[in-house]
């Protein structure tokens, strides 16, 4: 790793002040950032350690509202009986990070803001992986794990384990910055960059993800991940669904795909298909088809369309507690 400075603020205000300086990056669990620094894919002048910042770690369940501090480790969240009972799908999403060491080190904020796994990005060719004359290394190269919903020049996939579920739930992100606190839907944390200097998240310099807040009452959620290996890998495809309504009837359905697009992919049409409907094998299949409508696979990832259909169908089945 290249040399860098290090600061360990005690408060959010101090952290925000430090992060506003150019060349400063927030350090959470470090499992992603340190690898990027070792590979010289990212460079920093200074790391701002969030481990000792007060108020960023912890879990609160207040009626139907679940608040999770960004520096809460995945294992702390997994071990919180109240949170898991209120939102069992969390256990599925966290257990997908199939390494105890990564769950102990990795944080909720770090999971949400981890950098894409695209191998062109990880080899130093940038998020858009364009050649000097503007051709896409992804479309012309090996894109088996890339997006089936590419957005402009962005063809990587969002790798977060928690984001699809939080987006399906309509959770809010709490962000602190030089101007104070702002709240935004979790999906608004993400963007599909279209220029080399743009990132895949929308945080401004000096801004810090402090945590997330979700209403977990009155709905049923599920996550289904399609995996190549059970241990230590990201899923090939993931679906998260949140249903309101009881029994086999869905008043409203939110369906979100992970590993499908540069951002968590809200399959709005699929949710609309189910809203106000009985969940039957037919309506669920129609929703699964709607979820992949408009997909634009590349040379090597057409198989992910069927994985997405299957993930949506099985997530819906798990959420509704029925065999589908």
């Amino acid at each position, binding site marked *: *790793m*290249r*040399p*860098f*400075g*290090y*600061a*360990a*603020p*005690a*408060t*959010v*205000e*101090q952290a*925000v*002040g*430090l*992060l*506003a*300086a150019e*060349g400063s990056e927030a*350090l959470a*669990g*470090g*499992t992603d950032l*340190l*690898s990027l*620094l*070792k590979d010289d894919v990212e460079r920093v*002048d*200074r*790391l701002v*350690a969030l*481990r*000792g*910042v*007060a*108020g960023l*770690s*912890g879990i*609160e369940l207040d009626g139907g509202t679940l*608040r999770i*501090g960004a520096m809460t480790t995945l294992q*702390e969240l997994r071990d919180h009986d109240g949170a898991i009972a209120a939102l069992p799908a969390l256990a599925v999403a966290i*257990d997908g990070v*199939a390494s*105890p*060491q*990564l769950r*102990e*080190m990795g944080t909720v904020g770090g999971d949400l803001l981890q950098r894409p796994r695209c191998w062109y990005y990880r080899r130093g060719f940038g998020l858009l992986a364009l050649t000097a004359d503007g051709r896409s290394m992804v479309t012309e190269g090996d894109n088996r794990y890339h997006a089936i919903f590419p957005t402009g020049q962005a063809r990587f996939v969002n790798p977060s384990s928690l984001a699809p579920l939080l987006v399906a739930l309509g959770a809010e992100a*709490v962000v*602190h910055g030089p101007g104070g*606190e702002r709240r935004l839907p979790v999906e608004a944390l993400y963007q599909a960059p279209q220029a080399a200097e743009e990132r895949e998240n929308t945080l401004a310099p*000096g801004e810090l993800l*402090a*945590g997330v*807040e979700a209403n977990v009452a009155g709905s049923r959620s599920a996550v289904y991940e399609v995996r190549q290996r059970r*241990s*230590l890998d990201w899923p090939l495809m993931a679906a998260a669904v949140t249903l309101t309504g009881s029994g086999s009837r869905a008043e409203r359905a939110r369906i979100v795909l992970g590993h499908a697009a540069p951002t968590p992919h809200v399959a709005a049409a699929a949710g609309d298909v189910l809203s106000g409907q009985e969940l039957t094998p037919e309506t669920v299949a129609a929703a699964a088809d709607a979820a992949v409508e408009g997909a634009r696979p590349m040379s090597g990832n057409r198989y992910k369309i069927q994985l997405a259909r299957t993930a949506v169908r099985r997530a819906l089945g798990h959420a509704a507690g029925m065999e589908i």
Partner: protein
Amino acid sequence: MKGRRVTDDAKRSGFSRRSFLRGGAAGALSGGLTTGLLTGEAGAAAADSEATETVGPGPVDVELEVNGATHRLAVEPRVTLLDGLRDRLDVTGPKRVCDRGTCGACTVLEDGRPIYACSRLMIESAGRSITTVEGLGSPDAMHDVQQAFVDNDAQQCGFCTPGFVVATAALLARHPAPSEPEIEAGLGGNFCRCGTYKGIRAVIAGGEGGGVSGG
């Protein structure tokens, strides 16, 4: 508040002291002190202008406990816990294999929790307690898990073994008599390229040599 530029001449003295206090505060927080969560107010009482000091990129004094002994050393912030243990403290049980938080050969316990030492900066472990495979037991007085690895011949080239031993101890601390899926999940963060998984399962569940969980 304006961010500081990174400077070499940042105050170095007492960093370990502050880190020590910081480690203590973080411990208390994870113990359930969630007042002010997400409001940014909880930090007000802990505000310490000194804590915003930028240290490095040159060496910084760090104090941490390794296998029961307190060590104080000067390391650059970029030095990982793994490299600091191996290259500076001569604690070579944790192995440097992938160095990217994937293979598990560097697994150590930090305040009792299993982590990849390659993916933690040593400065981040200041004020904390590290246990490596050497801290579990010695050749003369082996930990039950170490003895069971010997009894079950659960290694071949042995390079992944220190990480597996520590991860197994952590698994058994959490699940004293783990089920088969719990064993798989509990050791899912460690790889053995020789493929000694059968012997490692026997370490826990009991094989010819007897397992540590009595299963």
